[in-house]
């Protein structure tokens, strides 16, 4: 079987690849257009009719098509460039395009420069590909929203920002894209901002992302102080010259940034709330692309992490905690989107885990990122399709028996399901398998935890399937489930196909080889068990999880309301493992007290000192003005006193 044909690369470890782009020419000079197209789309859609002199209504009619076409155009260019890149020699696969000097002060020179290399190329395909599909899907999903034009504008904005993120040639431009996707995410989560919960979730997501951004900003500062540049090329060139402590700090700061964007513990709390956004947003941003930016960052900064083992260990720890955390959440939630969100957290945990494992894992992290992008987008869109048919109800306890009513949705969702639990042959099988395998080879504790995670994944995904598509109908009154329109199901079908087939990426160890110019080549670590045995164990574990779900959920009656008499663990998981409470206790509540305290202190203490001084002066003058009693003779007396003083002073000066 294919698996046996895929030994891990046996080349020597420690070769740090240096980013060394060659100038973009020919076809590659179109690179900027990849970003440019959706950006133009966003501008036209958002600034809308008034500026273009069009009637707003007209733009509303075809605006969504404009958005979709720009995304599709971007995909077409990405695909062309990818093929062109494949046609190049392996050493020529880093192409840089310098657009303009962003800013330049002293030795700080930041160019608005792009870097197109195999890593970016894969991301480009994922972002524009999945992005286009989700655009298409949104045409149907958002049909009845009067602000659909704006929605597409935001989506295009997001695509542009995300592309900038992955095409950046230095950390500052990356930061630009990084913040840009954060903004788009904010706008889209809060798209239905008349709902207070959506507005609050949007703000929460943005602020928590910004906490992570502190890390990225500081890392950039430290990089500049250390290397005098933030270009990938320069930093990767000079990284080996820096002390390990410095690199560790940079690594940890980058990790903080990655945690924020990728919803890793401890900055995970925003992701579940982010499900307040429209479902296509959840699929695109909070499953397939933006949340994986953290993984991208770690893989991109491999030249730093390779020299900072402590930081790598930190990644592994964070990732392992997150993958279990997300999985536990997924088991307890009844909101279909939140289950998927928990699952996303968990899966990104796997990617981070792989990325934290170093050269051995980078390629697998990206691989899993891609496959996850497909199947999770697929499932989110499927969930959206279900919600679409169920009058926007998200509670799985009100679902059940939907496979008959929504055959296309069901089948495509099932593909995604099989992919995520790692059913042999489906894409998730290949990618997750590799990660667990590598983890076991690097550190058996982490490996076993990852294995447990895989089992739990099987449990909660099966639970979701059972509660949604099988069993009794528990629909609310007046709900008439129906299949979604063609414009929504076609993207589902495409994504389902990709979920099944994207496993071939690993064919012939292709992705590992393809990414070698970026991440280097790993030394082969002998896994503790034969590869085949590991695969068997993983599959068995997943099967256990599935079986558990079948016995605990599928065989029983599912109550319409969630039972309250449940174990502590379930309660905790339903409460997001008290993530919000922890934040509340540790940060928000003290913060709120601090703020109110300072606000009072500002009025009372700081301003009070000033006002008090003024009051004291007033009092003093009120006293001293009593001297002015109105009697002319009294004033004359003070004049004489003054004269006397002057005379005496003159005398004293003359005598002295």
């Amino acid at each position, binding site marked *: 079987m294919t698996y046996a044909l895929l030994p891990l690369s046996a080349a020597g470890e420690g070769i740090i690849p240096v980013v060394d782009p060659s100038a973009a020419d020919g076809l590659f000079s179109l690179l900027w257009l990849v970003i440019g197209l959706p950006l133009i789309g966003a501008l036209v859609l958002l600034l809308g009719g008034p500026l273009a002199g069009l009637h707003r209504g007209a733009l509303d009619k075809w605006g969504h098509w404009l958005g979709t076409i720009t995304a599709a155009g971007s995909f077409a260019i990405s695909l062309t460039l990818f093929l062109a890149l494949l046609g190049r020699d392996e050493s020529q696969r880093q192409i840089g395009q310098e657009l303009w000097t962003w800013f330049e002060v002293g030795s700080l020179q930041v160019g608005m420069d792009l870097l197109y290399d195999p890593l970016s190329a894969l991301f480009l395909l994922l972002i524009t590909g999945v992005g286009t599909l989700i655009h298409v899907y949104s045409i149907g999903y958002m049909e009845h929203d009067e602000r659909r034009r704006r929605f597409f504008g935001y989506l295009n904005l997001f695509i542009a920002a995300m592309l900038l993120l992955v095409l950046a040639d230095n950390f500052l431009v990356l930061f630009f894209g990084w913040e840009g996707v954060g903004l788009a995410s904010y706008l889209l989560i809060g798209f239905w901002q008349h709902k207070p919960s959506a507005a609050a979730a949007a703000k929460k997501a943005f602020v928590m992302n910004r906490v992570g951004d502190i890390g990225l900003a500081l890392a950039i500062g430290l990089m500049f102080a250390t290397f005098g540049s933030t270009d990938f090329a320069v930093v990767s060139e000079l990284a080996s010259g820096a002390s390990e402590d410095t690199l560790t700090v940079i690594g940890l700061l980058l990790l903080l940034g990655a945690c924020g964007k990728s919803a890793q513990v401890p900055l995970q709390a925003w992701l579940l709330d982010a499900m307040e956004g429209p479902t296509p947003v959840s699929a695109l941003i909070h499953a397939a692309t933006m949340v994986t930016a953290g993984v991208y960052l770690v893989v991109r900064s491999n030249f730093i992490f390779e020299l900072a083992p402590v930081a790598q260990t930190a990644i592994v720890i964070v990732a392992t905690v997150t993958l279990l955390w997300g999985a536990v959440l997924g088991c307890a939630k009844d909101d279909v989107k939140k289950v998927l969100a928990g699952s996303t957290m968990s899966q990104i945990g796997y990617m981070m885990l792989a990325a934290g494992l170093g050269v051995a894992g980078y390629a697998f992290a990206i691989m899993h990122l891609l496959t996850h992008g497909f199947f999770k987008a697929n499932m989110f869109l499927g969930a959206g399709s279900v919600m679409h048919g169920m009058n926007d109800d998200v509670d799985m306890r009100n679902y059940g028996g939907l496979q008959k009513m929504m055959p296309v949705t069901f089948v495509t969702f099932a593909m995604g399901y099989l992919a995520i639990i790692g059913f042999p042959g489906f894409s998730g099988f290949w990618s997750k398998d590799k990660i667990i395998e590598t983890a076991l080879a690097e550190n058996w504790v982490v490996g076993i935890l990852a294995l447990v995670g895989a089992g739990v994944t099987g449990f909660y995904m099966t639970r979701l399937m059972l509660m949604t598509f099988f069993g009794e109908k528990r629909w609310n009154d007046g709900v008439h489930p129906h299949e979604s329109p063609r414009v929504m199901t076609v993207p589902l079908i495409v994504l389902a196909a990709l979920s099944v087939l994207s496993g071939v990426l690993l064919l012939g160890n292709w992705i590992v080889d393809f990414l070698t110019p970026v991440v280097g080549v790993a030394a082969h670590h002998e896994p503790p068990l034969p590869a085949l045995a590991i695969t068997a164990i993983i599959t068995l574990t997943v099967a256990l999880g599935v079986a558990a779900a079948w016995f605990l959920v599928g065989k029983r009656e599912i109550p319409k309301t969630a039972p309250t008499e449940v174990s502590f663990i379930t309660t905790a998981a339903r409460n997001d493992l008290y993530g919000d409470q922890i934040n509340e206790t540790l940060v928000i509540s003290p913060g709120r007290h601090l703020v109110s305290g300072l606000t009072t202190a500002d009025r009372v203490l700081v301003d009070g000192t000033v006002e008090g001084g003024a009051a004291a002066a007033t009092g003093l003058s009120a006293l001293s003005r009593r001297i*002015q009693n109105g*009697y*002319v*003779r009294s004033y*004359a007396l003070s004049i*004489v006193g003054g004269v006397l003083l002057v005379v005496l002073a003159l005398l004293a000066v003359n005598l002295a």
Partner: protein
Amino acid sequence: MSITPYIVLSAILFTIGAVGVLTRRNAIVVFMCVEIMLNACNLGFVAFARQHGNLDGQIAAFFVMVVAAAEVVVGLAIIMTIFRSRRSASVDDASLLKY
């Protein structure tokens, strides 16, 4: 003939005038004390004119007289108006110029 006695006399008169301004309450008497002070100064001017052999001091005294005349005219008119409205010529009664 030294002018020092004149200067001393001038100083004494000036001081007496000043004390008078400070202690007397009848506005007219206060005015007279001011005149004493002015005259004391004049004496000084004239004496110094002689000391220096220069008539400028006398001119100064002359001007002081003119200004004093003007001042007395206006001042007495003010006293008149105040007296008309208040029936009093005491400087202490006009004590509105206060806090």
